[in-house]
């Protein structure tokens, strides 16, 4: 009973103060992030924002410069076999075991997972039209990604981490994947973390969104909340001095007017400047919000 309670207390994934750099350039600047059980977190950011590095550091696939990550309460860099059996990860453009056929790879990996779903493998291989006896090296990038997704899903993980899972998939396969992810999260309570550029994917399945920009986590909230919580504040040039100092982005236009992405405060109010005559508050869709901040 105590063990169960202890286990329930552990978050599937939790990271604190994660820092990393490549060749002197900061890629992660003190990231704090936690995933609640059963949540689907979409990690979004521009190319080179540090999404893959963050994911790899969170799973113990690289040693960060500073900070720590816990996966099911265990240090990510020293996971036990029991914890590993609960995790599945699909990297961006997977290239593992190119010398095996698709069937051999799934057979090989399946031997290590106690809850391996061979029936799911068989049916999904047929549904996704993967030739089981072709070497992985000879599959197209999209097919290879699909095989790796089957590998990840067949282990029936409690934590599913996907790095740009839809990058090489056609629209049909992408939609099937998203459906599968939503199903796993909804029915089995699988916690999902996935990175993407495709905002519509986020809107379709993610319950939470985390926006990574230049190594910093600019926002982390539920998808629905983004529309309520963030907006674009436009101030004419003569009022630019009244612009709030704290904003997620700030852009000055040629006519002197200024656009800012602002956030409601703890009391649910927009910054004071929003109430000035001539000021305008525009609701932002997820994609607009992303573009406004990232640009």
């Amino acid at each position, binding site marked *: 009973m105590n063990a169960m309670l202890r286990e329930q207390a552990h978050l599937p994934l939790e990271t604190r103060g994660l820092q990393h750099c490549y060749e002197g350039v900061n890629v992660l600047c003190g990231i704090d992030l936690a995933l609640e059980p059963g949540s689907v977190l979409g990690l979004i950011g521009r190319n080179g924002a540090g999404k*893959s590095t963050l994911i*790899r550091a969170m*799973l*113990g*696939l*690289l*040693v960060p410069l500073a900070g720590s990550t816990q996966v099911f309460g265990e*240090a990510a*860099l*020293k*996971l*036990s*076999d*029991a914890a*590993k*059996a609960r*995790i*599945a*990860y699909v*990297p*961006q*453009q*997977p*290239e*593992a*075991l*190119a*010398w*095996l*056929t698709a069937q*051999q790879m799934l*057979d*090989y*990996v399946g*031997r*290590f*997972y*106690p809850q391996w779903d061979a029936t799911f493998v068989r049916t999904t291989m047929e549904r996704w039209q993967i030739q089981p006896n072709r*070497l*992985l*090296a*000879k599959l197209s990038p999209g097919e290879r990604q699909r095989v790796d997704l089957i590998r990840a899903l067949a282990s029936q993980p409690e934590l599913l981490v996907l790095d740009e899972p839809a990058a090489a998939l056609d629209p049909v396969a992408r939609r099937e994947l998203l459906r599968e992810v939503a199903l796993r999260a909804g029915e089995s309570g699988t916690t999902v973390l996935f990175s993407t550029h495709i905002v519509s994917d986020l809107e379709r399945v993610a319950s939470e969104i985390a926006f990574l920009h230049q190594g910093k986590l600019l926002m982390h909230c539920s998808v629905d909340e983004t529309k309520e919580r963030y907006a674009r504040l436009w101030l004419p040039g003569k009022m630019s001095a009244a612009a709030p100092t704290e904003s997620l982005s700030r852009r000055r236009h040629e006519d002197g007017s200024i656009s800012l992405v602002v956030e409601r405060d703890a009391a649910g109010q927009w910054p004071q400047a929003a109430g000035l005559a001539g000021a305008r508050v525009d609701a932002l869709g997820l994609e607009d919000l992303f573009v406004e901040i990232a640009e």
Partner: protein
Amino acid sequence: MNPASILRMPWVISHAFIRWLALFYIVTCGAASVAFSHFSHKSDWWLGAVLLYGSSLVFTWVFWLSNSLLLAIDARQLRLPGIQRTLMLSLWFYGLLGVALPTLLVALAGGNALVVGELLALCTTIGLAVALLPRYLILLIGFLPALTDELEHIVDIPSLSDPRFVPYAAAAVGLMLLTIGWRWYRLLHAKQPYMQGLRSALVMYARNPSRDGWSSWSSWTGFTVGDQDSSTLIQQSPDWMQPRADLRNVGPRAPINALRVALGRWYMPQTSRGYLIQILTVLVSMLFFIATMATMQSNASPRNFAFAILHGAGIDFIGWLGAMGGTLLMATTVMALTQRWSKVNAELPLLALLPGLGNGMTLRRMLLRAGLGMPLAWMLPLLLLMLFAAWQMQLNVLGFAFITIAQLGNMATMVALVLSIFGGRMPRAWATVLLICGVFILGSLSTFMPSATMGAHSWQFGGYLLLAIGAGWLAIAGVLLWLGLRGWRGLRERPHPFLPV
């Protein structure tokens, strides 16, 4: 297009590592040629100097300037205007410069300018032709010594002092230029110019992207089995050469075999058919060299051809196999594992998160057994073969000792570098290349020198040479010990061994 862009072209066509290596080689050979000319008192002093410098010309054109073709292909594919013309002018400029300048210097010093010019033009065109010809033809270069010997019996090849040399050499240069033009055009207009394989040009192997030059150099040198991207390698191999995995005894209960599957290619447990095909492939390719050596032996004793094949060629082959094979095994293993430990989207994340492999020191020991077991299992029979050859050649104790040291040197280098990879403490690419080259040179000297420096026809300074080789091995042993210990410490300190280098 301007003169500056023509002059600058060699600086943009290749990786810095190849460029600096070629420059170093050409400057060293040039300096050696000048020294040779200065100290030689023979009437044909210029010949040695020209051949020394010529070897650097061949190297430069094979490995460096031939890369112009890659840029030409890219420029054509991207429809970039003007580049082809600049490239052509640059090639002609540097080609003529490399020939004309030394020819002028030799002529001023009293050498035969015409012969020198033709020899250097031959070196230049042969170098570029070698880079552009299909790889299977390059393999036949191994036959050249035997072929030349044989041709001398059939065709009257004029010597350098023969007046007929000038027209013969001019014709050869013309033939080479035609070959270059034909191959350049074919490769430039090929539908899939970048495909690699035995039928592709040698220069295509310089396309491997690498930040440190390690891949590009290793590709050039032919050690591509481990270093080249696994998927690319498999895509380029015909179906009958594809690996055939045997997964019967693989899983959490046989973790070493499981790790061998993840290390891939020749580490992987294969079906009997898979092993048979691999062994046959190696044996057939070795037959080329056996035949070459047999032919050379048969020239020495034409009446005793069978004996020459069985004894002379066989023993020579074993010697060659031991000297080259050990280094090749070591280098291939190191490159294969370097590749595995540098890709973040391949086997490393899979292994790091695969349950059932265990943790801590047990996992590290199993990984070492998987990573070292197979190559060492191949190197040991090589050592025994070498000792057998030494016994057949009736070498003395010193000969046996040096041959053993050479093979142990290869093994120790492999162990030290594999520990460095697993421990995340891989030395810089240039240092690794330098170490492997050093071990290869010492290994070759240790294999062949004792028999040459001892006995009835012993060299005057043979003893000193052997002492120098011994000292070289001692120095290498120190480096390997340091590398190995550093790697082992790194492996123990890492949270887990499946972290990229």
